[in-house]
């Protein structure tokens, strides 16, 4: 499947789901309704972009969820009480992510194991900082996340902005091209004299940055934090990247697709609520939607190959 059609499927799945939601609940078709539908999608989209940075270099990050929870706890405590210290902690967390990337490359460790281990570290730190739910959101992030821009709700503006920034950063800049090249053929990159340790550390640092943004915006929406607030983000972010047309290996990713994938997953939750499905079944139903979309993608890929064979 070439890159141009890669983006088509996530767009269509989002449109179909949105149409279904509007059909079942026409009142959602408003400024307020859209904001409500997509509000919680913004931190998920940020976490998905963070995961995408890791998948881009052929790794996978199982610590996104606990990392975002950790950041949320720091935001609701240190960043609120002592902004300077809070900011430093978050910067140190990004540096920590970069260090993990460097370690994985330098020692040739499997990322899945290292990040699984790190998920316990972040989770433990989060519990240390905030043993029971609480804390308070810094005012500026609260103001930002509840802002009401004219015409288009904040959630949509933020999502579009994120998609554009991530697209330019990864798909357009020359640095982005080199980072994707690491996923495509790391040996060729290394042979041209690039430091793979630096590049992988860079990709992980970007993941850390977007993870931090995810945690901060999440607190901006929820006003308080909890050490387990974002645990499900790990799987949601992986699903979002794949739903958005990304692949686990080969550096084939789409930032715009990843954001759309995250929105689709968030919307699937609302859709199932509208169907009055019991929450017990929702996770399973979300999985079913994911499988459905991926099955359609496989069909597209197959017919694409058949056409190529005919023309080739």
């Amino acid at each position, binding site marked *: 499947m070439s890159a141009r059609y890669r983006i088509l499927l996530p767009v269509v799945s989002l449109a179909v789901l949105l149409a279904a939601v509007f059909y079942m609940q026409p009142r959602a078709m408003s400024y307020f309704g859209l904001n409500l539908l997509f509000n919680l999608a913004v931190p998920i989209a940020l976490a998905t972009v963070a995961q995408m940075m890791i998948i881009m270099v052929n790794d996978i990050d199982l610590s996104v969820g606990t990392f975002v929870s950790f950041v949320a706890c720091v935001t609701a405590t240190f960043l609120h009480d002592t902004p300077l210290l809070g900011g430093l902690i978050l910067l140190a967390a990004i540096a920590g992510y970069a260090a993990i990337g460097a370690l994985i490359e330098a020692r040739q460790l499997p990322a899945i194991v290292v990040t699984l281990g790190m998920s316990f570290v972040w989770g433990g730190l989060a519990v240390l900082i905030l043993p029971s739910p609480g804390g308070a959101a810094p005012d500026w992030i609260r103001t930002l996340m509840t802002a009401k821009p004219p015409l288009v709700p904040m959630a949509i503006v933020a999502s579009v902005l994120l998609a554009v920034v991530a697209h330019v950063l990864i798909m357009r800049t020359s640095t982005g091209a080199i980072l994707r090249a690491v996923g*495509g*053929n790391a040996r060729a990159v290394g042979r041209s*004299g690039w430091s793979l340790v630096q590049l992988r550390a860079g990709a992980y640092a970007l993941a850390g940055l977007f993870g931090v943004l995810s945690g901060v915006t999440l607190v901006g929406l929820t006003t308080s934090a909890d050490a387990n607030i974002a645990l499900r983000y790990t799987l949601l972010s992986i699903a979002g990247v794949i739903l958005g047309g990304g692949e686990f290996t080969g550096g084939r990713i789409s930032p715009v697709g990843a954001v759309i994938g995250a929105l689709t997953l968030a919307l699937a939750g609302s859709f199932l609520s509208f169907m009055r499905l019991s929450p017990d079944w929702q996770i399973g139903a979300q999985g079913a939607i994911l499988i459905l979309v991926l099955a359609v993608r496989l069909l597209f890929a197959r017919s694409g190959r058949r056409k190529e064979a005919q023309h*080739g």
Partner: protein
Amino acid sequence: MATETPLVALSDARMHFGAVRALDGVSLTIRPGECVGLIGHNGAGKSTAVNVINGGLAPTAGTVTYALPDGSTGTGPAAARAAGIRSVFQELSLCPNLTVEENLRIPQRDLTGPGWRRRAARRISNALDAVFPGHRIRPKTTVGDLSLAERQMVEIAMGFAEGAAPARLVILDEPTSSLDASIAHHLMDHVKAFCARGGAVIFISHMLGEVFEVATRIDVMKDGKITDSRPRDGFTQQGLIDAMGHVASAPAEARRAASAAERIGEDVLLRTEEGLTARRGEIVGLSGLAGHGQAEALARFFLSRSAGMGHARRPEVVFVAGDRARDGIMPLWSILRNVSLTTLSALSRRGLVDRDAEARVGEDWRKRIGIRTGNMSNNILSLSGGNQQKVLFARSLASPAPIVVMDDPMRGVDVGTKREAYDMIRAEAEKGRTFLWYSTETEEVCRCDRVFVFRNGRISAELTGDEISEQHILAASFEMQEAAE
């Protein structure tokens, strides 16, 4: 005079990997305007020599000096880049997820800042136009969507492309392994023109005809040393093969006509929708220009016969891959595991693999096919390319399947290994196996009993017996295109 200083000078360069002496004291100089043909069988140290020359490996002893454009000399990888040393590697080393123009960004560090894409697109387009006129590759195409031949063309063009440090020495390691004759010819012409303008080229190829066409000097490597170095006219093809240490075994050719009649059965064993037919014990060649549907025809046939239950235990057809990295080897596995892959179910009892039987099969094939390793439990990647290919042959031939499908299996394999493989194929055919053999080299196709020439995805000619000759194959490959022009 400035042009007389060598671009690269190796002085007694040695490269040891543990006990292995990949380079054992190599001294050579390359001056502007020279095209050096570097030949030797796989494992002779050519790839190591290339990596030492381009600065990728620091020699364990000896020196490598580069002449920088400002007249001074330097050592190390940064100096190699500044001196304009470019390498085009044997195995394809592009990033398939990036576009053609984005791939140029990897070797060229000055492609950054606003407008870098436009500059990259211009550089790679100019280079492609110069080397391969009429190529039809657009810089915005994703490399994964290109054919193998087109990828190789892009890689070669990247070697010659304009950059911050202009290319002065381009090392081409098996550059034509995926190219057909007419495209390879464009490359030959460009190499000659490049050298005439004062550039230098190191040309590594197993196609001796190409080496004779472009090289001004030929260096022969054997066991990590340069054993012979003469101007091109000082060698003959036979002389070169002898110098590489492999003696031509002509009798195989003579045997062909005599044995073919009794070897090949009467009944048609297989027939495909394209019109391919093969009899028992027959070696059927697929030929024509590269990328005209031969590999696809083989893949379709193989998949149609290998699906379904029971195939693993009693395979009807086995596959020998040419693109080793993509279709062939299991890179994390040992040599033995790679050999035994297709025979695992025959080797297992009650669902468990009989390790002793597996080791016996491995040892048997190591001897029969001459896999050069001390220990079959070494990682497959410890072998040279030619030996990896032998492992793939062993994997397929170890199974009892009556039909063997081969997709250009001799790509980047040295002459000696090829000879051994030819004899092995013939011996297996005499035991009653049928071979479907796609090859980009006419010389190999001429060893077959029956040849189908492909053009535009269809069979344009079926040749048997004395009809199988280079002229007939070329005529069948080109006929239509000449008429259209």
